């Protein structure tokens, strides 16, 4: 009876873990659907909510822009130099620009932007929301007639999505600029050739995959940290393990999205 009972216990534990896992993802999807519905409803953009949305948008994004611009410029410079020098040493200098754009703009920059936003903006923001929920602030807000979802949750999610888009677009521009400077210097004479190579790389399919990937990255890093909020506090887990859980979940989602985009681009 001993082994049988332990097997049953294991099956039960696995089942419970599966249910919890599915429930967590379900909460993430619910938050996404909720934010989408709220973003499309005109009542969200009333004066009070709009001010809260813009406040979160600015406070969440503006401090990241300068840091991320510097960071991405440095990383881009290093990687571009490595790629150009390596390609030139193999006598493949004419493919250096294509390689730089594919490696940096298409693959690394959206990923870096998403991770940066997650670590600097959405994960702390989700943790703060959890604390507010634990303290009962959201209930108090609701008692005062303010919708906490519109006032606190949706702005944070929108901020995350916006920040990923802004940082990705900005660092793409920086990377293209640095790539041009590294390859051709300050001369404008190579701009036509540069534009032609960029046009060759960015086929409609590649552009669509890039846009879709960035959007999915931004959704993953914005929704997963706040998805735990709707799940509510669980007695068997500490805050640390809950935060780690959401981080792992987020990284897994980012990994899956990246793999899918690679499959879409290169197969």
């Amino acid at each position, binding site marked *: 009876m001993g082994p049988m009972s332990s097997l049953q216990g294991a099956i039960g534990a696995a089942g419970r873990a599966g249910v919890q896992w599915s429930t967590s993802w379900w909460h993430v999807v619910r938050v996404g659907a909720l934010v989408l519905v709220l973003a499309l409803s005109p009542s969200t953009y009333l004066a009070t909510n709009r001010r809260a949305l813009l*406040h979160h948008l600015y406070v969440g994004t503006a401090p990241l822009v300068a840091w991320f611009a510097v960071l991405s410029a440095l990383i881009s410079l290093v990687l571009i130099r490595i790629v150009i020098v390596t390609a030139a040493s193999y006598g493949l200098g004419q493919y250096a620009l294509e390689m730089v754009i594919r490696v940096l703009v298409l693959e690394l920059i959206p990923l870096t932007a998403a991770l940066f936003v997650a670590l600097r903006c959405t994960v702390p923001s989700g943790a703060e929301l959890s604390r507010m929920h634990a303290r009962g602030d959201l209930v108090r807000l609701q008692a005062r007639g303010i919708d906490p979802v519109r006032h*606190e949750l949706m702005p944070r999610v929108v901020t995350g999505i916006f920040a990923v888009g802004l940082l990705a*677009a900005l660092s793409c521009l920086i990377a293209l600029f640095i790539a041009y400077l590294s390859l051709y210097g300050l001369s404008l004479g190579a701009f036509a050739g540069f534009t032609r190579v*960029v046009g060759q790389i960015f086929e409609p399919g590649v552009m669509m995959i890039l846009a879709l990937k960035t959007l999915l990255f931004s959704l993953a890093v914005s929704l997963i940290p706040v998805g735990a909020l709707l799940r509510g506090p669980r007695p068997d887990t*500490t805050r640390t393990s809950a935060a780690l859980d959401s981080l792992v979940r987020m990284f897994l989602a980012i990994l899956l999205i990246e793999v899918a985009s690679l499959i879409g681009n290169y197969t």
Partner: protein
Amino acid sequence: MSPPDRDPPPPAPPPDVDTPFSVKHVEAKASLLLLALLLMVLGAVAYLAYARGAFEPTQTLVLVSDDSEGVVVGMDLTFAGFAIGRVKRIELAPDGNARVLVDVPLKDAHWLRESSIFTLVRGVVGNTNIRAYSGVLTDPPLPDGAVRTVLRGDTAAEIPKLLAQARELLQNLNAMTASDSSLSNSFGNVQALTDKLKGPGGGLGVLLGSDAEAKKLLATLERTNSLLARLDTLAVKADAQVFGKDGVMPHANASVQQLNALLADARASLKKADAVLDDAKTISGNAKSATADLGSLRAQVEASLRNVDALILEVNRKWPFARDTEVKLP
């Protein structure tokens, strides 16, 4: 990232919608950020559309090839190294040939003429290039929708041929450098030769074939040397005997002087002989004239004799006791 497990959490002030936000002009700044993102996205879309030639009027060129391997949508058609067109579509024609549809911007279309030639070249690395060559730029321009057959050149196809030749070459090299090959044997012989050369008298041994022959040659050289020494001694002695004080040459000189005196005597004798000969010549002239006189004398004698003979004959006839001269027949 702020650590989520900060314990105890700092007491956050409860949110109050009535209090103004701490950042000034937050709405304007947030709107600026939104506007910036919008501008970047629209700018990127417009730039990419421009880069892909969306705003350029183009004409179509159809290139027909039996194999379109390596050709991808978006690749360039180049003329003199400059991209003047872009592959728009690749399709398979009903006759089994590949049709490569190329968009050529109108501003670059003047490089393509009726007589232009198009090539599809695959490089070693796998890159494929479509190139246009216009030899006569004064020919009529290529019309829109023109269909041209593309010439194919495949560098990769040359590689197996090259490899086969290289393999053959390597086999030959292997055969040449094998341990029992003639080249190796030759090198062995060369080594033996150089070893031999390094030894005493090695060079002579190599030239003459064996050490014994070399020794013979050396012995010959020695004997020649001794012979030369003896010849030298002989020459010295001969010199003494010929040109010495009592040698041959002083005697010869004296003999020559005596001979000169003899010759002078002889010359004088000859002069005398010349005079004798002159006398003899005179004598002979006299004898010659005397001989002429003798001839006439002889003629006269002969005439006298003939007269005497006729006289005797006449006497005989007239004489009574003439002899019977008739001939009697038996």
